[in-house]
């Protein structure tokens, strides 16, 4: 961090404007001015509410103040359209009040065609846009003229975009911009992050953190947030994720606040929490609902109502993690476990956007394990330790898209393009051979059987020069640009009325006409499918027959998992936990042992004629699911007769015909678990198939399904699955399969987590053979067969099972007392 005196002041016009508002320039705002003066790029890390956006734009406004600059000066790129629009509105204030000669415009997918055309021929001084729109702009032959004079690129919410495929696309766009406008500096705006170097590398024109061309600016510390855990009066459930029991108290908290955001982890939770809050809503508080499956117009309405201050609360999923600042929000409620410290801080940061007053947040654990996780997150916030994944290499599918986009703008030289791409951080280490393979894929599909010469998309001149074969590919590129591949979804229409939103196809396939389900905050009756639209009508009654569908489940972060393990190990901390939770842990200590921070605890016990094996891995549900597949395969081979498994965020339970003995455990969890079975399993797994589909769409092998192209009764399209099977059989080393495997291994962190765990626990596995279930195993055992969790009758059924399990787990031998 540069701490030397900045020796820079605001121009008089700006100083007066600041003074008129009663402001003084923050140090970080001056530091950004200094960086711009020196022509250096800058990474500004500041909490929300620190005047971050203004700091990013201030140097550009100062440079443009004298009015003798025409053409595009500053390009702003935001991950959200709505954010670009909001920033535009905020920027107009200083521009108008200081009477600056600066034209600002936004450009997104919604911008009318005529305006877009004008923006290319007569660009404004400041253009606010998204990564996809930038990619499109760069694909026009006039891009060199448009961007030739560009001085500055501002990247907002950089922490949220770097390290994703959209981030890869944007990084490639930046590399292109640096070729078109060599003097252009980059400004990154970011929330506090665990890893800074990857962001610095991202901003560097050389694509590496050590290049020294990026200044790091810290934007002051926010007051530490006030976070409390809501502990319900009365019992603390053993399992479940809806926290319905705690909602009366949540409702009271919402009532006491001015405006609240109630964050949940899944869309199913959002629907149910929303319903329950309204059931409790005797005061008729305006409470809204916001999640990614709702129709865009519905979401915009809710956002606008929030901005106007017309809502007292909104129940939201990660769809509101980023976005427009709502100054009025003074309480953030997190229902269910937070899953990660950085993410929790991000959510808490949505409250009270002022540096001097702390944000207020309430964590609402839904079960006993979540109490531990909430406590661990709280400790993490106090220690200000963040979690987050280190960066992964850029996707080859995105690279393929970029190559076609580059060809759309005009002929290119392969050597020059390779050098340009290698200057983007995600592609810094890219092997030339791989680049050439991707280029060949773009040209002919890159198949060993070279049968597509006559259908080639790119034509080479044999001397390293390439050009687009036919303008038709230009149109295809523009239709399919971007890295967001939606799951196949179907629209939900209410009678003949409005579209309420979209649901995943798989959910609809499970519905029969007459079934009721929760969607968009209402109870709906499924009437059938018409073409690709779900026909629904309002239903009556309390409990939907089919529970709201899950979606957007987040894995527990490695860091938080480690803290939970620490909490379990250190019983000195337990008295600060709620009494039922402490008692539960004491019981476990008494009946079995506690899992240790290092190593792995495995328990085995008989139950109902089956043999159970419970492993306390704490690696997150996705990793446990993969581990469960691998472990059952191995148990099958070793003759244990595995019958099934269930995974929670904390625990994996497997049941089998034959008991696992102490001597078998090391062999079961040996590191080669990932070797022999993984390859085979991965190839078959739906995870790899899903990944391939995304890769194939992004790389331009198959097209996104666009409206009007959906399956009809008579026309059948091919599926990515079939292509995957054929390609895997006939050309297993094809570049898209390599891209798919890299994505699956790096993008989804499950495999990495399992491999890390297997290494960590080697020689440190503790096995406890028990005569019956242990207290700590109860929650995961309650997950078995828990497909439908809604409705009183089902709850009763589950309740019975739960009670017998708990009774079994906590039954004391005669005379023994719990040593409390």
């Amino acid at each position, binding site marked *: 961090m540069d701490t030397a005196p900045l020796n820079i002041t605001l121009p008089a016009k700006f100083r007066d404007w600041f003074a008129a508002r009663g402001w003084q320039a923050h140090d970080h705002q001056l530091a950004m001015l200094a960086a711009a003066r020196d022509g250096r790029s800058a990474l500004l890390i500041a909490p929300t509410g620190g005047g971050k956006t203004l700091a990013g734009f201030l140097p550009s406004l100062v440079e443009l103040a004298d009015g003798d600059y025409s053409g595009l000066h500053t390009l702003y790129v935001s991950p959200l359209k709505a954010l670009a629009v909001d920033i535009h509105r905020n920027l107009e204030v200083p521009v108008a009040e200081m009477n600056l000669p600066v034209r600002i415009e936004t450009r997104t997918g919604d911008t009318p065609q005529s305006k877009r055309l004008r923006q290319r021929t007569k660009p404004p001084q400041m253009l606010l846009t998204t990564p996809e729109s930038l990619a499109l702009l760069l694909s026009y032959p006039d891009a060199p003229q448009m961007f030739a004079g560009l001085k500055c690129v501002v990247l907002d919410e950089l922490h949220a975009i770097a390290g994703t495929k959209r981030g890869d696309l944007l990084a490639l766009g930046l590399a292109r911009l640096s070729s078109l406008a060599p003097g252009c500096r980059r400004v990154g705006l970011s929330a506090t992050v665990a890893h800074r170097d990857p962001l610095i590398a991202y901003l560097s024109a050389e694509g590496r953190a050590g290049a020294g061309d990026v200044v790091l600016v810290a934007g002051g510390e926010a007051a530490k947030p006030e976070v409390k855990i809501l502990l319900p009066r009365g019992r603390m459930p053993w399992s479940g994720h809806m926290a319905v029991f705690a909602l009366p108290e949540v409702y009271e908290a919402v009532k006491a606040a001015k405006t609240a955001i109630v964050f949940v982890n899944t869309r199913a939770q959002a629907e149910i929490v929303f319903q329950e809050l309204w059931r409790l809503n005797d005061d008729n508080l305006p409470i809204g609902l916001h999640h990614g499956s709702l129709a865009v117009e519905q979401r915009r309405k809710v956002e606008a109502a929030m901005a106007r201050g017309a809502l007292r609360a909104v129940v939201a999923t990660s769809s509101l993690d980023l976005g427009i600042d709502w100054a009025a929000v003074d309480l953030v409620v997190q229902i269910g476990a937070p899953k990660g410290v950085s993410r929790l801080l991000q959510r808490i940061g949505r409250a009270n956007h002022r540096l001097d007053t702390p944000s207020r947040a309430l964590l609402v654990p839904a079960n006993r394990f979540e109490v531990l996780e909430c406590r661990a997150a709280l400790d993490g916030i106090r220690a200000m330790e963040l979690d987050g994944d280190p960066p992964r290499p850029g996707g080859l599918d995105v690279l393929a898209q970029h190559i076609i986009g580059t060809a759309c703008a005009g002929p290119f030289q392969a050597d020059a393009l390779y050098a340009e791409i290698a200057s983007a951080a995600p592609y810094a280490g890219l092997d030339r051979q791989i680049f050439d393979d991707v280029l060949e894929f773009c040209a002919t599909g890159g198949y060993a059987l070279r049968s597509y010469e006559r259908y080639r998309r790119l034509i080479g001149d044999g001397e390293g020069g390439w050009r687009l074969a036919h303008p*038709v590919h230009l149109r295809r590129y523009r239709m399919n640009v971007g890295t967001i591949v939606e799951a196949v979804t179907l629209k939900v229409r209410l009678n003949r009325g409005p579209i309420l939103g979209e649901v995943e196809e798989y959910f609809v396939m499970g519905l029969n006409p007459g079934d009721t389900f929760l969607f968009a905050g209402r109870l709906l009756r499924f009437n059938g499918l018409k073409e690709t639209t779900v026909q629904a009508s309002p239903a009556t009654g309390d409990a939907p027959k089919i529970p709201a569908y899950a979606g957007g489940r987040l894995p527990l972060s490695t860091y938080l998992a480690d803290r939970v393990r620490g909490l379990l190990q250190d019983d000195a901390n337990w008295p600060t936990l709620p009494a039922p939770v402490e008692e539960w842990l004491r019981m476990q200590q008494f009946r079995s042992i506690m899992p240790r921070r290092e190593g792995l605890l495995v328990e085995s016990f008989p139950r109902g004629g089956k043999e159970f094996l419970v492993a306390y891995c704490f690696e997150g549900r996705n990793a446990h699911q993969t581990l469960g597949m691998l472990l059952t395969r191995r148990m099958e081979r070793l003759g244990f007769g595995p019958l099934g498994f269930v995974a929670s965020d904390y625990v994996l339970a497997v049941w089998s015909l034959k008991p696992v003995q102490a001597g078998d455990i090391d062999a079961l969890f040996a590191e080669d678990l990932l070797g022999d079975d993984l390859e085979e399993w991965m190839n078959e797994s739906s995870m790899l198939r899903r990944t391939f589909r995304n890769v194939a769409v992004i790389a331009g092998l198959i097209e996104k399904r666009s409206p009007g192209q959906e399956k009809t009764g008579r026309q059948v399209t091919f599926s990515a699955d079939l292509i995957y099977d054929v390609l895997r059989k006939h050309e297993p080393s094809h570049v898209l399969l390599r891209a798919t495997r890299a994505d699956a291994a790096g993008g989804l962190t499950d495999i990495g987590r399992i491999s890390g765990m297997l290494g960590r626990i080697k020689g440190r596995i503790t096995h406890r053979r028990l005569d019956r279930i242990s207290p700590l195993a109860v929650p995961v055992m309650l997950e078995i067969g828990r497909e439908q969790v809604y409705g009183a009758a089902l709850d009763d059924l589950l309740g019975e099972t739960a009670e017998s399990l708990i009774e079994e787990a906590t039954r004391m031998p005669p005379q023994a007392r719990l040593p409390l």
Partner: protein
Amino acid sequence: MPNTARFEVNGALLAGDPSGALWWAERRALIVADLHLEKGTGFARRGTLLPPYDTRETLTRLEAVMSRLSPDIVISLGDSFHDGDAAARLDAGDTALLSRLTAACDWRWIAGNHDPAPPGDWGGRVDSEIVLGSLVFRHEAILDRAAGEISGHFHPKATVQTRARRISGRCFVTDGQRLVLPAFGAYTGGLDVTTPAIARLFPRGFDIHLIGRTKVHSLPRIK
């Protein structure tokens, strides 16, 4: 053959093979539907460069079933070629393989909507429909002529909920009167059996024989 599904259509005893072909043991007849040969190049010339291995894959699978069952007659129920000039796009290796297959038995092409007139120089005979015993073979089902009708065209697939997860796959659909075959081609997707286009053919409900990894699973009648 324990991996097949046995069912009766209009009195004929048939077996659904895990490959997606239909076997009529009494006549030693092997029936396949919707091969869609050269679908890959069909897409490639419009700019979608699908892996060019679909024809090889489809023919190799067919060759495997034929050498397992040694049929006297093979009936390809139409849409054998993806489009009108698909035949011209076959490469030399695939051409040789296909000629070998058509020469190995009495080979019948049925005309489909993608290939109204299958090319004549591949061996085999072209018909719009064929009657054999109690069965009639045509490309697309005709609503009021169900008796003994064996057809393709719709590429039926079905999704079932198992205890572990939802599984979806190609399937044979029959009500004992008529039968719709799954598509055999490597790049042929599917249409869910519950969509009206298929369901309306079976007003009294239908049985599904779902093709799994190595076995055809017979599922109870759905209505």
